[in-house]
């Protein structure tokens, strides 16, 4: 078994099948950004260590998901977990990031620290 297979968080590029496994969720974001910078491809979540994501948030809007996750974190939700929760609803990381940007630009969501988000 390789590192990739036993990782807690894995994401995949559907265009070129490149898969990335990490131990912390936000490392997936780094992968997403680097991969997109070089190929323009979007990335999808494949597997998330389920304890990190409450499933009750299913089928709510993005802001509701940030609000819900925010209750379990002190200083903002790791951004990648938000994309993972949205991934459960079929959104790619790129799609969630675009929607999140929209929410930030309209003042609904902010970053208490880098790559961590809170809503109000």
């Amino acid at each position, binding site marked *: 078994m390789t590192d990739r297979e036993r990782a807690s968080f894995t994401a995949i590029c559907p265009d*070129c099948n*490149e898969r*990335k496994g990490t131990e912390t969720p936000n490392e997936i974001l780094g992968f997403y950004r680097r*991969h997109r*910078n*070089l*190929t323009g491809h979007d990335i999808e979540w494949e597997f998330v260590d389920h304890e990190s994501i409450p499933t009750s948030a299913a089928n709510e809007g993005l802001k509701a998901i940030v609000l819900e996750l925010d209750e379990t974190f002190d200083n903002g939700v790791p951004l990648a977990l938000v994309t993972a929760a949205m991934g459960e609803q079929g959104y790619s990381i790129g799609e969630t990031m675009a929607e999140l940007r929209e929410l930030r630009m309209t003042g609904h969501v902010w970053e208490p620290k880098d790559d961590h988000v809170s809503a109000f």
Partner: protein
Amino acid sequence: MTRWNDGTDRVEAVSPDITDETNALPAEYFTDPNAYEMEKEKIFSRYWVYAGHANCIPETGDFFTRTVGDKQIIVLRDNENDVRAFYNVCAHRGSKIVEDTPMTEPGSMSRIQCPYHLWTYDLDGDLSTTPKSFEEASLNPDLADEEVAKLDDDGNSLLEVSTDRIGPLVFVNFDTDPMPFEEQAGKMATELESLPLGDYQHAARFVSEVECNWKTFGGNYSECDHCQANHQDWIEGIQLDESELEVNDYHWVLHYTHEEDVDDELRIHDEHEAKFYYLWPNFTVNMYGTADGYGTYIIDPIDESRFQLIADYFFETSEMTREELEFVRTSRQLQEEDFELVERQYEGLKSGALAQAQLGPNEHTLHKFHRLAQEAYNA
């Protein structure tokens, strides 16, 4: 003799003679975060590094970005049809100008405009226009409009980075006084320039992240002693005993002969021979014997313990035929096999047990690689 970190042995510089016991780069240069910090300066800012393929930006104003270490450049086609490179940094107050734009999805612009205060540059990097607020002092009670100096276009142009080419392959050098490109690319440039590389189009790019130091993969690419044991499918048609490893100043070439060949009409290089060029520090050109096309690898470090392999494939057209697709799949398989090997090697290296490895007599290509690293560190 291998040198272990067992409290007795110490490492030494890579010896010029491959038969000496200290013929490898000390292991710490593969695992120490400071080593990569140093390499950003001493290697990636001083030697020529591959930026991308000119065919991807055929029209005036076409561009892509390329990030090398902490530096990002815009590589673009100017009005004279030349390919030039500029730091992606505005001359006004240093804003990043264009978004990250991969070579595979190039952008296009008629002028280079910074989104911050709209300073605008021509495609040759010269400042062409600034908004009125930079020509008039209407908000500054201490200055009259006439006192405002006109910004000189030349003096406020973008910072250009030296470029050179091997056919369609574009290289950049961040040094203000770079070594001549010919010195680094030497015979490799002459050989490749005799081939119609520009007639081929970009067809596929695969980017993989691998958990090891970039030099670990560079070393693996540079020898095929591991092939027999690890690339069963690939070596089938290859005559490994007839292969040759050639060492030059800044590049080395692995020649392989193979049984099968592509159609005589459809071949850009010699019969029965595949050539794999490694150009210091982190670029390879793969002239496959069994497909009419070629590939390139960029072995791009992310940090000391991770790199990205950027694998590009070029064929007659950008639409791949079924055979080409199959060929690329085999190539991807080879990469995955190698990734396992280098990640495994890196796990070993990270344990800190090994102080300085020991290269075999036929690993002279690797020896060259380690010597060049050493030379760069000491420069």
